[in-house]
């Protein structure tokens, strides 16, 4: 059994030019160099050019799944196109083994005037299925798309949902070694989306490797083992899907609140106004996740150190659910005098609780502010809440006592008002 990586992207870089005219001219020159054999790896940028990918490395083995997240223009789709063989790198190399499938541009090649049946063959052919493979899988494709009654009607009579389902059904009939997914994880209504996920899970279990580009961090967390946060063409974070995606979501939320993201992800940020360390005083899993217990007190041990003295220091710990939902904050804002400080070091513990949070995965974010000004924000530690075996809903769970009501009139009055 061979465990060589299916995808081996080694320090790949790619140059793009924003200006249309310059881009065409450079294109002509580059084509000339390609034809004359003079093209080599690039290290310098010409006027108007920028690095859309810079020193990106990625290894993917069978059965692995990686998510690519980042702002628009971060280079995710460029990396995907490179792996798909559509464009050439300007530096570095990419070695791709195995059959590549793509869940990109569903329904490509569809001709509206032809029937769904004919389009299945065309689209299948574009995606790389042989005529025999399409014929063999035809019934399964139509069945998956739930279009038995409409398969012989011209595609222009289909609703957009039907077209999307057919496109997905054909694309998922592939059995590739690597599946590239660009934003299209599932289409159709809720029930059909469950089918899509089911199909992708089947592929994953049979050893297909995945690269998923998505703006939905929940999908990334659900689907991928690792995630890569790309920014301005570089790999900014590369780690477990959960931690990278949650960090990204928190950063996005901060940006969308209109506040200056002191927690900025660009490489040019040189902020180092303070250092922060915080963690729960609790046992941890092997990956550092703290294990807390429902309905018990929790303690955070922290230490912030600043380079300059702060006039009105304030420490706040945010507790976030793993998809970014803020649950609550533990803060010195209401009692600033209680923040332990010694010169430019703010260290101590805070005890809070009881923890009414439902069992699940959460993140602890540590913040240090000076009045309204942000000094430091850090993802301190993921934690999970355990110790409750009941059915739960929503974010929190209260202790409940159910009994029959007899007697007091006050109680009856309350009930009738309700």
């Amino acid at each position: 059994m061979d465990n060589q990586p299916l995808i081996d992207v080694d320090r790949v870089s790619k140059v793009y030019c924003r200006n249309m005219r310059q881009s065409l001219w450079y294109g002509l020159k580059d084509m000339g160099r390609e034809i004359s054999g003079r093209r080599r790896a690039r290290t310098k940028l010409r006027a108007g050019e920028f690095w859309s990918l810079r020193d990106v490395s990625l290894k993917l083995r069978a059965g692995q799944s990686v998510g690519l997240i980042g702002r628009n223009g971060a280079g995710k789709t460029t990396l995907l196109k490179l792996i798909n063989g559509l464009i050439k790198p300007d530096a570095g190399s990419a070695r791709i083994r195995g059959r590549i499938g793509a869940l990109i541009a569903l329904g490509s090649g569809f001709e509206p005037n032809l029937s769904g049946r004919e389009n299945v063959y065309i689209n299948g052919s574009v995606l790389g299925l042989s005529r025999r493979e399409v014929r063999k899988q035809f019934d399964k494709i139509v069945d998956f798309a739930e279009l038995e009654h409409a398969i012989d009607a011209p595609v222009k009579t289909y609703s957009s949902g039907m077209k999307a389902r057919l496109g997905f059904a054909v694309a998922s009939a592939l059995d590739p070694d690597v599946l590239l997914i660009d934003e299209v994880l599932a289409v159709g209504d809720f029930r059909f989306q469950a089918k899509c996920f089911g199909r992708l899970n089947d592929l994953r279990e049979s050893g297909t490797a995945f690269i998923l580009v998505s703006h939905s961090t929940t999908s990334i967390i659900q689907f991928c083992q690792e995630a890569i946060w790309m920014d301005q063409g570089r790999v900014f974070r590369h780690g477990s899907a959960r931690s990278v995606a949650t960090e990204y979501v928190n950063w996005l939320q901060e940006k969308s609140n209109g506040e200056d993201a002191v927690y900025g992800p660009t490489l040019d940020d040189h902020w180092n106004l303070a250092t922060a360390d915080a963690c729960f005083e609790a046992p941890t899993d092997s990956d550092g996740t703290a294990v807390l217990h429902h309905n018990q007190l929790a303690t955070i041990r922290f230490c912030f150190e600043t380079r300059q003295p702060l006039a009105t220091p304030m420490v706040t710990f945010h507790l976030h659910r793993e998809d970014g939902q803020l649950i609550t904050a533990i803060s010195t804002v209401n009692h600033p005098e209680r923040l332990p400080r010694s010169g430019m070091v703010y260290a101590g513990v805070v005890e809070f609780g009881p923890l009414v949070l439902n069992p699940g995965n959460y993140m602890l974010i540590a913040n240090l502010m000076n009045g309204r000004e942000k000094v430091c924000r850090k993802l301190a530690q993921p934690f999970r809440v355990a110790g409750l075996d009941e059915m739960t809903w929503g974010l929190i769970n209260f202790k409940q006592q159910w009994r029959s009501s007899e007697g007091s009139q006050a109680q009856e009055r309350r009930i009738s008002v309700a």
Partner: protein
Amino acid sequence: MPEPSSGHTDRTSTPTQRGPAATGGPHFSLAVGGAGAANDMPEAVYTPDSAILHPVRLLRDVASGLWVGRDLAWRLFVRNLRARYRQTVFGYVWAIMPPIALTLLWALLKGNRVVRLDMPGDVPFAAYALTGFTLWFAFLGALKSPMKAMSGSKNMLEKLCFPREALLVTCLGEVLFDFAIGLGVLMVFLIGTGVPVASTWWLFPLGGAAIVVFGFGLGVLLTPLDMLYKDVSKAIDAFATMWMFSTPLFYAPMKGTAGWVINWINPAVPLVVSTRSWLLAGQPESMYLAAFGVYAVLGAAMLAVGMVVFRLTLPYLIERM
């Protein structure tokens, strides 16, 4: 900086205090077991180096693209033909309209002595003109078709990887299909009006093939340039009429120096004149034969080189789509 308390494990692989890592980030690769890959997997390596440095591999890739894409080429061919005239009443009549209409028009102008058009030999005007126009539109169609096919497939090209040579095969198929229909109409006309064909008529298909190969080869070679600068196809459209009139489609070829110059400058001249002569009048003059040979070979060379250039330049074109 104070040490973290015991029991605290540094979770993130790059500390956020310092800002993100200066290099491309940690090289994280889980060595998960899982289904192993078979050793006979297709493998592709993408590097910045020019693909022409490995000519054997390049030619093999082109050939493989043609072979693997044959089913796709056929499907796209059928799709395009059926889609073309779906929403029309007259369908394929439109494909054969131009040569017929132009022949009728010039016959009318000649008949009313608006223009004087002498024919070489005893070839009847209508047969002469219709053959000329049919060959010309086959040439022009072949020239424009690769550029149109590429422009029309931008959606597929910029998102999916498939044997791109299939697109070229498809549009060549469409060109030949249209040519076949035009020839069919021509044959019906010649037989119907009882026009005698020359003894060299069997060279006519060879001439037709050379015309299509030259037009298509030139088109394929110009396509990468056209994908960058639309001036190419716009120039062809702008000058098509002038080019058509400078070719003796419905008039006898010029004589003397002018005739010689136009024969060598305008590739359509020797290609059309020779082919038509073979069908209607017999062996053409040696000047036309010589130029025909040169352009036929040039056309085949352009087609071969064009296919290779097409493959080499595609990544650069896709980047800019």
